[in-house]
């Protein structure tokens, strides 16, 4: 019953996936909500985030584990958070 080891990732891949999911996922979830908050009704988005913030982060953590290569998912998460941050920056200036 324990998972078949042949399907599990190597230690370096595993490290990349865990950090991508935990740190990258957090960055995506936060920057995405910040983007929504700057373009939509601010306090409504922030209070909605109480529910969706951790759900999205956790979903992204799961998604990172499903990826084939940890570095690729890091790339995606970094890219998305940069795009969202750019949107926040544009709204602020």
């Amino acid at each position, binding site marked *: *019953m324990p998972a078949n080891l042949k399907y599990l990732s190597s230690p370096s891949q595993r490290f990349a996936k865990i950090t991508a999911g935990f740190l990258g996922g957090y960055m995506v979830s936060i920057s995405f909500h910040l983007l929504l908050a700057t373009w939509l009704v601010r306090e409504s988005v922030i*209070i909605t*985030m109480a529910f969706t913030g951790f759900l999205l982060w956790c979903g992204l953590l*799961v998604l990172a584990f499903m990826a084939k290569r940890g570095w690729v998912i890091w790339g995606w998460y970094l890219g998305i958070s940069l795009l969202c941050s750019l949107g926040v920056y544009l709204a602020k200036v």
Partner: protein
Amino acid sequence: MSNRIYNILFHTHTVSSIVISVALYVIFFAGSFSFFRDEIINWERNQSVDRVDEMSLDFDLAIDSIQSRYALYGRSVTISQPHAERRVNVRLSGTKDTLAVEEAKAARFFYVDTKTYEITDYESSYTLGEFLYRLHFFAQIPYPVGYYLSGFVAFFFLFAIITGVLIHWRKIISSFYVFRPWAKLKTIWTDAHTALGLIGLPFQLVYAVTGTFFMIKLLLLAPVVSLLYDGDKGQLYQELGHTHPSPTLSSQKLTPATDINWFVADANRIWPDFNTTRVHIDNYGDGNMQVRVEGEASTENKLLSHGHVTYLASTKAVLSKKDPLETVYLDTVKSALNSLHFADYAGLSLRLVSFVLGIITCFVILSGVMIWLTARDKKKYEGRKKFNTNVGAIYLGACLGLYPAVALFFCLVKVVPAGLEGRFPLMGNVFFVFWLAYIVYAYVIKDFGRINKHALVLAGGMGVLIPILNGIQTNQWFWRSLPSGHRDSFFVDVLWLVLSAIALVVAFKTKAKAGQQESVPNGRKKTIADKTVMRKTLGERPVLMD
């Protein structure tokens, strides 16, 4: 789902769940009892409390009582009743009057009894109900470690829920209907884990999300404050309606200080269906004194409602108001966060259902640990067997030992005399030492069946004592308490009788399954031969590949 993803998810589900299992069990076990926090407190104090949604006290008598001890001029005073207890919470801010003495500039928190108008502080009012409630987010571990620990446990619980659902997704309906109590041990644990996990799924998801938010909301709010509010935390809280801009002091004293009861009554005149939950006074005794009466509509008319009226005290003019029946997104979501977690949007029956679901979740956690253990009870894992058994014994000792430890605490509350110096820390220490001793005992005997049985016997035995000790101490025997209006006393006594009966029946009726670790009948000491046979039968058992 490909085999690769299935196995990866399976592995992450196992690892994350095993790591958090004991902490999560404690959170759910103590949390389940916390649904009855107010009942337990009223049982402890032997007080009867009328269940009404409306605050029932004379606000002016309360203010008089507070004023006899604290100078109130220029302070803000908040009186609220978040719990179904006889006392209300009072929070004083420091005064805005710059000329006041230092004493008046310090903030204060205390309770006022709604019958005697006596003032008591937090420490001397500490109760078992409060202790269990705080245990369920590890508040006994110094702040902020306990809060963050419980918050991240809740977050990884969310992770375990999502991965668990994904693993079972394809067979989620069919495996729900599968229960094979006469099959081999491993199968029983698996069936119970999936079926009960699915029954509790919506409940668990709600508690994982809201629990994570309560404990580690700082992770969400810190970037919001620094990037959207330029570091101004106060502005965020104002926008979310947690705080209100505080009016300035006019420095002209208001004489005589107006009666607060009038404002509360007036709010009830504006909306006939208005239950006051909180009264907030700014600039007490000042020309610019403002009174804000907050409340809700009754739940028959509207769930998750919130309304308020703010008055200028000197002229009794309404400065602002919000109809509780009007729906505002922000207020509704905020109330939903709390109500979903505290299960306070309906009566006792809802909390009873939540209690059962909470205990079911404890079972799901334990059955998960048992799957992990039995799946590793194979020849392939022989090298790690000792380690796995030790971990299993400690895990089970910590989880199952909590039940008798809680029962012991309920007994102590009724035995240790009320006036004793350092009473609560003493009882708390006895609780923790007993719990630790049970873990050590479990580690020493390493026999899962006996760890379970002895915990149940201890908890059942002490549980039966609880109503008896309460009867001796208060003369409020459970057959008398209901007619005399002590509903909570009756409830807690009967709850323990029912729980103890279940514990004792389970302890004495459970037969060890063949091959399960359990003491050998006839009082014969287990021989090495027995153990070898046992290991063999366990080891050769084909393991279900899900």
